[in-house]
């Protein structure tokens, strides 16, 4: 390139001159910031530090299930604007519900609070903790927001399904999965292929584990006292084996499976079992792609109450424990609870109404979203859950 200003070298255009002028102006602005602006920024920071009495803010880490990611991220932002929020820095650590429990037991010192999707894994967590440490690992617990399990299904296929089976349940889904010609046998629709039902991996995701718990209650037609005898029953094991050999997906994230269903349409899944909150969150996105999605509530259901466990961990300071409690109180306040509704949750604070004009329970009523549930099952004991998982793994081994 010519650098002597000869005629064939690069030329400065009119626009170029303007650009240089603006550039110099901005550089002067930058220099002003270095000389003067920096000073005023320093003053602001100093003021903030002085509010803390000179010390750094208390940091707490919350390992949480990703189903409530968008709500919690928003809540942390709001908390930071409060006077408490200036003293407390909340680090959100997204982890699958079960992954979070394992991280706490293995001594991950970033975690002071564990907030899985449900209490399903609590007893196992407590037992594992007590083997390694002693005492109760949970200082305090409160549910943050509730969500039952639902089937989410393409409406056209739901109509064809109930034409044949009358009701959608894990029992009728099991029958559909065994239909040899798939949709050809179910509704004379060979072009729909096999019946495709999915849920997440029970060993990696709470909603997958909850699906097989609900399956066990459904099979035994009861809502409590699910025992080892029920789980080890040969007929139940065979039935569960059939269901799980036919099911697909087994992702570690409920949100990712739901997203796949919306993006790939009925070619990927006819029906999924997911949290009600996840289904609501994606109903709008599904519009205008593959037809309407329908939300169906199983007769036997269970709550995912998103508990907030303040961990009695040896690495948590008393300031961190207090900070965790302060943030919990903030999450349960009415404005924050009301926001959880926008993400499809049912607020744990009973002062917050869930049926009003803009509520998803009104907006998506045509998709089948409803407040009332039928039979709510209790969370089984740790040894029952462990045996259910073992049964599921055996069924997978013979796939």
């Amino acid at each position, binding site marked *: *390139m010519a650098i002597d200003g000869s005629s064939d070298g*690069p*030329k*400065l*255009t009119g*626009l*170029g*001159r303007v*650009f*240089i002028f603006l*550039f*110099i102006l901005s*550089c*002067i602005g*930058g*220099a002003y910031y*270095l*000389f003067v602006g*920096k000073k005023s920024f320093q003053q602001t920071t100093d003021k903030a530090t002085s509010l803390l009495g000179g010390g750094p803010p208390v940091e707490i880490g919350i390992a949480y299930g990703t189903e409530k990611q968008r709500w919690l991220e928003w809540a942390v932002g709001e908390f930071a604007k409060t006077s408490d929020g200036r003293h407390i820095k909340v680090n959100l650590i997204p982890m699958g519900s079960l992954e979070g429990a394992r991280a706490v037991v293995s001594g991950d010192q970033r975690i002071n609070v564990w907030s899985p999707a449900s209490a399903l894994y609590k007893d196992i967590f407590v037992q594992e903790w007590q083997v390694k440490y002693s005492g109760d690992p949970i200082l305090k617990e409160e549910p943050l927001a509730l969500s039952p399990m639902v089937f989410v299904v393409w409406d056209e296929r739901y109509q064809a399904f109930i034409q044949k089976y009358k009701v959608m349940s894990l029992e009728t889904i099991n029958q559909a999965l065994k239909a040899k010609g*798939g949709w050809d046998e179910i509704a004379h629709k*060979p*072009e*729909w*292929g*096999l019946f*495709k039902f999915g849920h997440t991996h029970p060993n990696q995701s709470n909603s997958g584990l909850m699906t097989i718990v609900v399956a066990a209650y459904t099979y035994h037609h009861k809502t409590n006292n699910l025992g080892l005898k029920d789980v080890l029953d040969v007929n139940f094991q065979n039935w569960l084996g059939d269901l799980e050999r036919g099911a*697909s997906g087994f992702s*570690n994230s409920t949100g990712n499976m739901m*997203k*796949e269903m*919306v*993006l*790939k*349409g*009925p*070619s*990927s899944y006819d029906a999924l079992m997911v949290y009600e909150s996840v289904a609501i969150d*994606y109903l709008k*996105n*599904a519009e*205008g*792609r*593959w037809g309407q999605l329908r939300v169906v509530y199983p007769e036997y259901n269970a709550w995912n109450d998103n508990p907030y466990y303040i961990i009695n961990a040896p690495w948590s300071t008393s300031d961190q424990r207090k900070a965790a409690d302060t943030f919990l109180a903030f999450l349960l306040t009415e404005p924050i609870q009301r926001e959880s509704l926008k993400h499809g949750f049912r607020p744990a604070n009973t002062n917050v109404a869930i049926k009003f004009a803009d509520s998803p329970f009104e907006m998506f009523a045509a998709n089948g979203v409803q407040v009332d549930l039928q039979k709510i099952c209790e969370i089984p004991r740790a040894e029952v859950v462990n045996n259910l998982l073992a049964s599921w793994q055996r069924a997978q081994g013979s796939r």
Partner: protein
Amino acid sequence: MRVRQHWLGLLSLFLCIPLATILSCKSPNKTSDSEPQFGTSADRVDLLFTYGSEKEKWINDVTETFNRGDHKTAGGKRIYVKAVPLGSGEAIDEVLSGRRQPDIISPASAAFIKLGNAQSQGKTGKDLIASTDNLVLSPVVIAMWKPMAEAIGWGKKPIGWADILTLARGQKGWEAYGYPQWGRFKFGHTHPQFSNSGLISLFAEVYAGSGKTSGLTVDDLSKPRVADFLSGIEKSVVHYGSSTGFFGRQMFSNGPQYLSAAVLYENMVIESYSQQVPFPVVAIYPKEGTFWSDHPIGIVERDWVTPEHREAAKTYIQYLLQRPQQERAITYGFRPGSVDVPLASPIDTTHGVDPQEPKTTLEVPSVPVIDAILNLWQQKKKPANVVLVLDTSGSMNDDGKIQSAREGAKQLVNLLSDNDRLSLLPFNSKMTWAVQNVPIKTGRDQLNRTIDSLFAQDGTKLYDSIDAGYQYLLTQSGDADSILSVVVLTDGEDTESTTPLATLMPRIQYDGEKQKIHVFTIAYGKDAKKSILDNIAQSTQAKSYAGTPQNIVEVFKDISTFF
């Protein structure tokens, strides 16, 4: 401390002015010249991203914008992404072997992640890629010329893999549908070991052969019915290849006499509407189900990916999933990977595709079943009969050209399948058949020894040698079911042939029926006449390459994917 800040402020101001001058001047060499070399700048985090070449245009477009933007890590370092398109299989192989060390990878489908993780688990006990997001989506379709699709009932009834595959296996070809003038049914898919759409085509063929739509087992692969079915279809394949993009473009530019149908991605059907084609192309969504090419993207789980690279990689991935980039993807014919972006034109029937399809999918087989499918394909694929016409003129002695050419030729021998055959015709002022019709299964050592014995001298009898190689293959009458190809490597101009170019060209012109031998050409070194060699390759529906002693092994490797 404060004083140092003053000087830094002034220094940055003066340093900025020349940069601004360069940016605002008319100059043919713009920002690329001012970028430091990859991996050398201390204030920049350089990411290497290898990805399936199907999405090359979109990735180039949005990555260029990303690199121009001010994307920084928390530590204040600018993020720069070097994006390298590769075949999906190649991208995984390279990272498994460590030949290339990318930070991010995105093959065309999750099947390659599954295979890569299984191999990585076997070797290191660790996954290669832990978690992924889908960048964009495109279903695998059978792309067919609209009149041909209508002839088999498209638009009136659902069409399946089995229909296409029956047509491919039929002896009568298009005559069975009342169109004898269209000749044989010519089918194409890419090489399953290098390309995602090729692998997926094989899955579909095996499903159709076994009569299943899920639950394929290794035992299914040992059934004679499945093997016969596969072999019947593969006979109608024109040739293979490493890139679905090249395959699609060949189909669109060469017309129905070259390919009746090919397994492509939906986005390529849409792309055909932006170019001159003899007929519109439509997408057939097979009724038994198809597969999604879902372009998973993930960070590589290897030690060379530092925490800083990981952070930068997350920023880049997040950028690709944001609305503006996803909307750009739609303009290239891809369905967005983000649920917030609705489907829009050109994903519509006026571009030959149906946004309400596919209705169902086939199940991706387990890793042992995939391995068994690939083994069966190696046995049943269309065999190749190749003549290697190799320049050994005196100029090949320069710059180590003859040594590198020998290595490249041996690479071809090693990559051909056991059922293939190879002849070797070295030429200078004379042409001499070194060996003819050697079966690869038993003749690999002999062929490698023969190649090693070649030395360079005298002139260049190029056209006569191409003609001789071509005529020899024409006499191989028992080879109706083989891919017949001549591979020519030359480093210069013809000096001594009796056959002029004008006579040679009509003698080798591809017509899809009687003259269907492909002539792949390599213009080796700077003195080769590339335009002539390009014409020869083009008129025989083959590919031409620019070769150097440095890349010749890779060139031969790419050529081997066509067989």
